[in-house]
């Protein structure tokens, strides 16, 4: 999966949890999920679990803790969905 596709899907998944919708409209890889988009930190878990369901991946606690920006989420998803060599 390429970064642009993953980014679009990430934005779609995060949208229902976002309090600052304007920030989502101009979001980039460096947009911080909690601070910039106003996502409740407790809901970050729901978002990670939604990633698992949408992309068929497993995210351990350590990987989840590293997701702070949209770019972090995209990177994690692209890595975890990449075919094994």
């Amino acid at each position, binding site marked *: 999966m390429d970064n642009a596709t993953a980014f679009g899907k990430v934005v779609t998944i995060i949208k229902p949890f976002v309090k600052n919708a304007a920030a989502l409209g101009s979001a980039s890889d460096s947009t911080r999920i909690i601070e910039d988009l106003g996502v409740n930190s*407790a809901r970050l*878990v729901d978002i990670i*679990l939604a990633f698992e369901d949408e992309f068929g991946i497993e995210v351990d606690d350590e990987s989840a803790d590293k997701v702070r920006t949209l770019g972090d989420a995209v990177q994690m998803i692209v890595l975890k969905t990449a075919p094994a060599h």
Partner: protein
Amino acid sequence: MLSKRDRVGLRVQEAVSHAMVLLTYPWLWAWMRWRGYRIPGLSRVRAEFEAQAGREPGPLLVCANHMTLVDSLVIQWAFGSAWRLLLVPRAFFWNLPDRANLSRRTWIRVLGYVGKCIPVVRKASPEETRRTLDKIGYLHGRGQSILVFPEGGRSRIGRVDTENFSYGVGRMIQDTPGIRVLAVFARGAGQHEFSDYPRDGERFVIRLRRLAPVTSSAGMRGARDLATQIVHALRDMEVEAFETAGVDR
């Protein structure tokens, strides 16, 4: 893994809190009286706590709804006398207040320390969250009791909030397999919405129920399952209290 510094710090705080209980508890009692707070059927509530969770040793996680800044004081008062807390240290619950609330004044910080408070940071970094969970796991490993508010803060909707709650309580249960869980519903009869303090002269309704939350999932999904079961149990207890205890809606 909790650092040695944190472990020693908790042991010292535990010893100091225990040594001071005959000073702090009368202060709590006097303050409750001064505000005119009452718990009808207090001896029955204490007997019920003893029957459901007090007599049995081992770690205990007390999960309560949250409406005011002094809920933990009300619950501690409801479940044990000064002598009980002196003779059975585990009956004196650890608390996890928001550091911002505890840092307002020096005397509040001192009371928090001797009141077995572990200040937590809202929206903490993953590292800080892990450290707090490790402290909780360490205390549970020593058979201590911890009072938490699974909603993660005072409910903004005037009811147990089953939509916006934290999953941290689920992680605490995962960290200590076999831990006993006690759900506590505590609310002033005239409390309509969240506030710093209950109104003067408030009469508190206390309900408690042993829970055995289970999940077949691990990790974050499991934590969410466990936390959801607890918050829903609190919501059910609230409904029951509204119907049977004369709590204002």
